[in-house]
Structure formats: structure tokens, C-alpha cells
């Protein structure tokens, strides 16, 4: 398989691991920010081939996991409105809010549908003209342009019963919040391949300039990840933090300007609450004034007063890389994929979910 088999070559991977061991002297702790990386690192057993003094820790990169309880509560409220069809990506349905989940509401009769793409949500709107179809928009810069594209398409087609409840998050402000908090001990970032395909490398340049933390944009196959770690280790040994792209076949330094343009045509940055990180300025996306007709926030009365996070759940600490899931008292016994307490256990890409599945 082109662009695939060579990046899964086991003997190549172990050669790169040997190179890492050969050059690495200083202890280091790298944070991967993307849930797909978290899972890939577990599956490939990369932790086992790295020298003892190199640690890997997961960060706030699973879109389901960073969604605040309040975002779920608003979606639940929305699902309870007669004539509303809530559409969203699969995992969101199971995330518990402060008193219910979309799955539970569906059991009680709400019309909640899983879709694969925002264009499918638009199709639901076309087929149900008497209903109001709301897409629950979550995710980072990879997903936001696709949701913007659906809004643009709805406008062009004159579809009037489609709107978006935007809980999107932007990655760079979260990195900044993590690092400026000072509590997180990270010596380098394994930057997310596909978010970076959209945003390019400029945001990481700022991270390097301000915090001198190395950033390498990395692909998702074992050889990619090991090469990315090799690049980070080389930077640390040389004492020269910079931004590098390992995942060149998918990421250009300038990112995807078409996607960014579509995104900023429909959305503008707004302050947004993150699970475990609190409200981060300009880290979310709200629909622009011109697209108010597609903004579920403006169309429906769904404000929720207080949305406490589940008692005992440490998702916030997990997302900041301060603890690993096994250090959460609820892990495994009380909280598991069958009965998730926090969002990090819901998603297959969530750190708790990945630890549950792969960590012995």
C-alpha cells in the first residue's frame, strides 16, 4: 500500500529506535496532543522500545474529551425540544453531561442521530423539512472547516432548517494555556498531523519562540512516530528547539489555506470552556453575525446555568498530562467504557479509554 507499508515496517522502526537510544542522553518527556497518536503509540508498543529516561504523556487532543460538561448539557437541552433532530459524531452521544447524555435522551424518545460527515447532517435536514436539524459541532481545526463548508452549502442551497451548535476548539491557545500554567512538565510536543495539515506550522513557531519547547509535526504510523521522537531528541541534545515537520507527505508549512478561509468565513474565535483547563481566551469558534440564521445558540433557548464536572473524575488532570488515568481512583472499577464517568473514557481515542484497552 502506497504511503503506508513503508511507514509500518517493523525492522525500520526498530532501527530508528536504536538510533534514538544511541543519541539520547538527556531525560525528556514528550506530549502527544492528538488522540490518534495516543492510540497509535499504545498499539505499536513504542513506549517499550524507548530508553527509560524518555517519557510519553498524553495531552488535550481528543475532541470529545476536551468538551466541557456545559456543552453536553446544552446539547441535551436541545435534544429535548420537540421538532429538533440532533446530529453529531458518534462518540459524543455517550458523553455524560451533568444530568443526562444524548444517548439517554434518545432512549427517552429524543431524535438524536449519528452522522459520519456534516454533509450527511445536511441531508437529514433536506429530508426532514418540517424538523429543525442541529449539528453538534465538536473538534479542532480539522473538523471546523468541514462544518463551515456545510453551513456555506446550506446557505447556497437555501436550506433553512439546519443549524450548528458550535463547541469547536482551537489547538494553539490550549498549548499556550498548558505551558503558561507552568504545572506541566513537557520537553517537547508531538504535534498532531492532521490539525497541522490545516493550521500549518506558524502557531508552533510561537510556542518555540515563547517557551523554547521543541515542536515536531508527526504522522500516525509507527515509523512516523519514532522518527518524530528522534527529531525531538536530536533537538534536545543539540539544545536547539525549533519547529520541524516529520509528516511532510501530509503537512505543508503554510497549512491548508482553503480550509482556513472557509473556516474563518463562517466562524470567529471566541472564549471557550475546556474540560480541566477552564475558559481559555479565543480558543473556541462562534458563528459570525452573518451566519446567525445557522447558529443554534441564537435560535434556541439552551443556556444552562451551572454544569459541574462529574465528582471524582480527573479528566482535567489527565488532559493536562499531570496524571495518567491509572492514578484516577475511579479508573477501571467505577469508570470503564461500558459505564464512562468522564469523556476521556468514552472515546476510543480518549486517554482513559486507550489506557483501559491497552495498558496492562
Amino acid at each position: 500500500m502506497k504511503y503506508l507499508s513503508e511507514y509500518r515496517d517493523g525492522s525500520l522502526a526498530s532501527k530508528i529506535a536504536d538510533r534514538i537510544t544511541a543519541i539520547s542522553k538527556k531525560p525528556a518527556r514528550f506530549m502527544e496532543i492528538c488522540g490518534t497518536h495516543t492510540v497509535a503509540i499504545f498499539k505499536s508498543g513504542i513506549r517499550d522500545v524507548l530508553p527509560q529516561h524518555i517519557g510519553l504523556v498524553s495531552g488535550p487532543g481528543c475532541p470529545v474529551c476536551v468538551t466541557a460538561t456545559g456543552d453536553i448539557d446544552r446539547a441535551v437541552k436541545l435534544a429535548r425540544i420537540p421538532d429538533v433532530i440532533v446530529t453529531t459524531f458518534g462518540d459524543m452521544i455517550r458523553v455524560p453531561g451533568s444530568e443526562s447524555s444524548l444517548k439517554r435522551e434518545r432512549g427517552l424518545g429524543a431524535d438524536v442521530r449519528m452522522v459520519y460527515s456534516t454533509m450527511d447532517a445536511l441531508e437529514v435536514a433536506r429530508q426532514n423539512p418540517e424538523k429543525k436539524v442541529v449539528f453538534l459541532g465538536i473538534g479542532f481545526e480539522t473538523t471546523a472547516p468541514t462544518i463551515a463548508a456545510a453551513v456555506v452549502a446550506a446557505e447556497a442551497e437555501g436550506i433553512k432548517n439546519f443549524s450548528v451548535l458550535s463547541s469547536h476548539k482551537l489547538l494553539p491557545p490550549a498549548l499556550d494555556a498548558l505551558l503558561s500554567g507552568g504545572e506541566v512538565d513537557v520537553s517537547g510536543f508531538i504535534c498532531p498531523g492532521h490539525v497541522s495539515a490545516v493550521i500549518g506550522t506558524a502557531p508552533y513557531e510561537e510556542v518555540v519562540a515563547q517557551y523554547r519547547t521543541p515542536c515536531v509535526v508527526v504522522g500516525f504510523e509507527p515509523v512516523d512516530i519514532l522518527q518524530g521522537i528522534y527529531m525531538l531528541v536530536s533537538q534536545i541534545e543539540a539544545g536547539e528547539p525549533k519547529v520541524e515537520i516529520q509528516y511532510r507527505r501530509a503537512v505543508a508549512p503554510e497549512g491548508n489555506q482553503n480550509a482556513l478561509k472557509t473556516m474563518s468565513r463562517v466562524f470567529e474565535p471566541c472564549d471557550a470552556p475546556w474540560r480541566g483547563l477552564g475558559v481559555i481566551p479565543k480558543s473556541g469558534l462562534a458563528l459570525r453575525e452573518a451566519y446567525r440564521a445557522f447558529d443554534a445558540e441564537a435560535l434556541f433557548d439552551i443556556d444552562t446555568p451551572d454544569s459541574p464536572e462529574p465528582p471524582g473524575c480527573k479528566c482535567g488532570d489527565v488532559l493536562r498530562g499531570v496524571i495518567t488515568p491509572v492514578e484516577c481512583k475511579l479508573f477501571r472499577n467505577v469508570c470503564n467504557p461500558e459505564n464512562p464517568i468522564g469523556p476521556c473514557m468514552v472515546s476510543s481515542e480518549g486517554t482513559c479509554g486507550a489506557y483501559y484497552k491497552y495498558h496492562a
Partner: protein
Amino acid sequence: MCVAAPMKVIEIDGDNIRAELAGVTKEANLAVIDERPELGDYVIIHAGFALHRIDPEEAKITLALWKEMGVIDEVPE
């Protein structure tokens, strides 16, 4: 949500494509792609949208870096 692996474009119909990987096919929309693909190109697909057309030249640079690291002997064609 994200298919990390590149898929080969096997059909283009306006703004919609069909792409294939190991016998599995997926449809995707081209509204937000950086560069329109042609038949036979490889693309990265995320949630029903093609985000990126793989640049074969860039992919070669990675292979060249492996050679530089001493983990492969020859850059494959």
C-alpha cells in the same frame, strides 16, 4: 473520525470523490481540500472531507531523511 491513512482517488464527480484503501472505499467532499486531486492521487480524508492531496515529492524527502539517519541504504523509487 479521522482516517489517518492516505486513500487513492478512484472517482471524481464534481466536488465529490470516491477513494480506496485496501479494498475499502469512502466518499469524500472536496470543498476544503488544499489542492484538487486527479484520478490516482492520494488524499487524506477526515469526517467525509478530503483535506489534503499527498505530495509525492514531499514523501520522498522523508525517505531521504531516513537515509541520512542511516536506517535505510537506498531511497526506494
